[in-house]
Structures are given as structure tokens and as C-alpha cells.
């Protein structure tokens, strides 16, 4: 079936529309195609094409007893997802270890954080805290080198938080780690938290000198997001002197400048009863979903606040009130198309559409009931190679 030969630029255009699986196979066509698929410009063009479509939704599910985690993928066209075996993480997943996704999928790369379920109050076992960068589309992963914490034996420490992001100035993936210390024997100021950054290009950790004067409520499943090149955590600061309570706030870490910043929370009007919150992103704005923690509540209402001007406290607006919704355990966050994702009491993901007010369950074929949905992220595949550190060209 010979046909008139197309010029290179048109062949490239066609190839940039193919899914990664096809391109990996076509690496065997000839040398120039093989080289093309490693070209940063082509990789960027290909990723841009796929970024324009609706992303696939990835959902992590955790088994109640063993804490094992699996991922399911839900392409936009299907209402029913499948337990995509190709998404089986090729590393970690020991019993009693919790596998979490840090933040967002960036340029087709996902960062996984594995930590022990039972958190020791003394010196943690550093080897049980593992981070890996993973590109599921090309089946490539890299486990980060362990960075041990060195401190005197009378000082206790804890891994306060991790963050994953991309430095667009140096075209590099980075992971930030915050370790906090406490020493019961000392009266006076505590040892400051230790902040370290891992960069993929150097494949190493380094300590950075930066001020962090708040405590992070680390929970990758509900209180961390990635936006505008910065990783954000929900945090709090104890107001001195006692008896002033803690002030809640948001801490961000900019991946390029490597500095922390504080973003203020909205002022809630009615603060009766215990309020829970979920941190998410909606229409490229920081979003907070507040809901009541009262156990007697069978139908829940969710207040959704959005920060229209990034960093400006006055720009927080209570944009939506959703509910009452029945049978919902908690919110998960927003899908790229603006639907609200929640977990039902049975552990399944529920999608809420603002326009129609309807909810839809996301079934996962082959998933046992003992697995409950934990996190969701929008996933767009790419050819970005972590192991060959092929730099993504913007």
C-alpha cells in the first residue's frame, strides 16, 4: 500500500497525535523515528495535544485492613472505569504501608509517597519513607535515594510533609521534604524544621535555608494541592501567647524560588460544630470544600469557596453550596471538567454535576468491596523519560 510520501513536518504532526503506547511500538520503525520520540520539542508537542483533550481520571483505592493501594483509570468517554492492571505500581505496596499520590500529575509524571501506616513517635525508620517518580505510560519509574535524618538521639523527629513539583525555569522535577524536631529536655526555641529539596537533574537532596513558621497538616489525600508551580499544604500556626488558639492557613512552596509563602484562609461566617475541609483546585483557583463532621448527619452539605485572585485573602468567595447529598462520606476534589468528586459511604467515587445537580457512581470492574476510594488526579500521558532525564521543553 504505497502512497505519496509525506514531508517530515506532516509525519511529525500525525505522530504527535498518537498515544504513547503506539509511539513506543513505532520506536522500532526506523532510527529517525526512534530519535524523534526522544526529542524534547516533540515530547512537548505531543503532550500539548493530549493536554487539550479531557484528561483521564485516576483514582487510588485503599484496602481497609492491609492498606494496600491500587489505581483505577477512567477515560472520559467511559462511565465505568476498569482496574487498569497496567497501572499496577511496579514498586512498593507492602502491607501496612500507605501509598499516596503527591499533588498532581505533571507532564505525565506522577510522584508516589510510601509511608508506614503506624507512625512511630520516636525516630522513624527512614527506609520506610519512600518516594518514587513514575511515568505510567512508558512504564518507567525511579525511586529517590533515601535521605537519612541526622540528629542527636535525645531529639525526636517526624516527617512533617512532602511536596512534588516542576521548576519551569530550570526544566526540572523537584521534591521537597520537611522534617520537624522536638526535644522535651530543652526549654527555649525548638530546633527549626529541616527543609530539603531533591532535584531530578542532580539525583540528589540538598538542604535549603528557608523560613517556615507554621506547621503543616500533612495529608496528601485531602489537604495538599499543586498549582501555579507551587505545592500547597493546609497548615496552622500557634498564636503566641497562650490562650490564643491556632490560626489556620495555607503554606505554599514555590518550586523555582524554593521559598515558602503564607496564603490566608477565608473567614467562615458560621463556625458551629466541627468543620472538616478538603483542599482542591477548580478552574485554576484554590478551592476549599467545607462540610460538617457531625456523625449524626446522613445528608451532607458542602460549602465551596474559591480564591479568585491567587494569594489575595479578600478574593475568597463562597461560590457554591452543594447538597443535601445522601450517602456521601467525604469530598475528594474537583475533576478537570468541574464536576465535584466525592466518596460514597460504600467507598465508591461519586461524581456530582453542578449543571444538572445529578450524581453518578463510578464503578470499577473487578475491585473488591474492601477497597475504598482515596485520592483522584487528572492524568495526561507523556513520553517524558525520568530515567534518561529528558528535559521537557516548554
Amino acid at each position, binding site marked *: *500500500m504505497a502512497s505519496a*510520501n509525506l514531508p517530515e513536518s506532516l509525519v511529525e504532526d*500525525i505522530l504527535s*497525535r498518537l*498515544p504513547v503506547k503506539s509511539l513506543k*511500538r513505532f520506536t522500532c520503525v*526506523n532510527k529517525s523515528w526512534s530519535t524523534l520520540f526522544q526529542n524534547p520539542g516533540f515530547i512537548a508537542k505531543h503532550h500539548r495535544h493530549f493536554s487539550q483533550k479531557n484528561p483521564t481520571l485516576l483514582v487510588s483505592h485503599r484496602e481497609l485492613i492491609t492498606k494496600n493501594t491500587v489505581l483505577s483509570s477512567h477515560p472520559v468517554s467511559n462511565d465505568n472505569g476498569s482496574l487498569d492492571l497496567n497501572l499496577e505500581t511496579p514498586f512498593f505496596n507492602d502491607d501496612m504501608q500507605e501509598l499516596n499520590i503527591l499533588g498532581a500529575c505533571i507532564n505525565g509524571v506522577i510522584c508516589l509517597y510510601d509511608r508506614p501506616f503506624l507512625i512511630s513517635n520516636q525516630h522513624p525508620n527512614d527506609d520506610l519513607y519512600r518516594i518514587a517518580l513514575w511515568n505510567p505510560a512508558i512504564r518507567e519509574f525511579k525511586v529517590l535515594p533515601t535521605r537519612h535524618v541526622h540528629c542527636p538521639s535525645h531529639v525526636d523527629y517526624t516527617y512533617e510533609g512532602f511536596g512534588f513539583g516542576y521548576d519551569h525555569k530550570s526544566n526540572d522535577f523537584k521534591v521537597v521534604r520537611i522534617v520537624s524536631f522536638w526535644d522535651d529536655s530543652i526549654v527555649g526555641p525548638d530546633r527549626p524544621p529541616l527543609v530539603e529539596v531533591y532535584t531530578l537533574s542532580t539525583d540528589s537532596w540538598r538542604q535549603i535555608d528557608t523560613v517556615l513558621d507554621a506547621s503543616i497538616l500533612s495529608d496528601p489525600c485531602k489537604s495538599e494541592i499543586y498549582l501555579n508551580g507551587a505545592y500547597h499544604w493546609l497548615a496552622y500556626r500557634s498564636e503566641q501567647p497562650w490562650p490564643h488558639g491556632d490560626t489556620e492557613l495555607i503554606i505554599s512552596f514555590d518550586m523555582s524560588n524554593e521559598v515558602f509563602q503564607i496564603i490566608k484562609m477565608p473567614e467562615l461566617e458560621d463556625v458551629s460544630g466541627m468543620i472538616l475541609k478538603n483542599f482542591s483546585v477548580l478552574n485554576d483557583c484554590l478551592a476549599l470544600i467545607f462540610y460538617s463532621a457531625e456523625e449524626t448527619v446522613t445528608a451532607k452539605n458542602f460549602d465551596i469557596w474559591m480564591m479568585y485572585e491567587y494569594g489575595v485573602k479578600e478574593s475568597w468567595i463562597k461560590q457554591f453550596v452543594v447538597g443535601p447529598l445522601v450517602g456521601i462520606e467525604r469530598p475528594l476534589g474537583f475533576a478537570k471538567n468541574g464536576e465535584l468528586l466525592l466518596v460514597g459511604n460504600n467507598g465508591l467515587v461519586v461524581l456530582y454535576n453542578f449543571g444538572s445537580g445529578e450524581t453518578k457512581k463510578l464503578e470499577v470492574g473487578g475491585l473488591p468491596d474492601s477497597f475504598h476510594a482515596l485520592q483522584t488526579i487528572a492524568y495526561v500521558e507523556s513520553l517524558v523519560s525520568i530515567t534518561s532525564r529528558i528535559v521537557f521543553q516548554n
Partner: protein
Amino acid sequence: MKFCAVKQYFDDENNNNITSGASTTMIPLPNVESHPLAILITYCKKHLKIKANNADNKKETEKEMEQYEQELLKKVMPQELTELILAANYLNFKEALDFFCRAVASAIQNKSIEFVRKFFGLESDFELGEEEKLREEFAWSFEGVDED
């Protein structure tokens, strides 16, 4: 005007102040065969018509275009797609170029290496054993490929 190359021709004509009966002007298109040109003209007319019918409703336009495109693809042979791409490229007809490139991508997505080589007129230039090594490394990408 969608056929940017043709528009360019008219613009050039006006610049040269040549008076002519526009309806009988002959525009030379040496690089386009009549068959793909006919298809492109039909595609263009259809696109303009659907756009006009659906005035402000972009979603409806997209939906109707998609339906038309699906029907069109059923009538076009894969070999013709290459000619159509070349014609659309020469005429600088962006929407059609985008559509036909998408169509080719869709057509070859699940095909074997041999099929793709034939389609693009390419040959393997790997050293002995290099290709086997790659095939082994990416064995997973060969799962579920269409039979030739």
C-alpha cells in the same frame, strides 16, 4: 476564505491590478489532483454550511461536523488520506489538514510496524540486533495490535 493558497492568489492579483471576470479566473494548482481537490471543496462547503446553520452554537457545529467527518471517512480509502493531507497542506486549509492528520493517526494507532513502514514508505535502518532489542524492551506496546 478557507483555501489560503487560493486567497493568496487573489490578493496577489489585486495587487497587480489585473482586471478580470472573477467567475472565470483560472487559478493554477499544479500540486493538487482533481479527486482530492473535489473532496476538499465538498468538505469546505459542508463546513461553512454547518457553521452558518448553527450560527452561535459552537457545540452543535462541532457535533454536526464530527458526524459528517465520520461519514466522509467511510468513503475515503486510507491511501487517499495521504493525498488529501498533501492537498490540504498545499492549499493551506487548516481545518481539513487537522482533520485528515487526525484521521491518519486514528487509522494507524493500532497497526503493526510493518503496516506503518509500508504506509509511509519507510524501511528499517537499524543495525543487526538493534531492532530485536527494542522490540523486547517495549514488548508490552505490541499487545493488542491489529493483524495485518
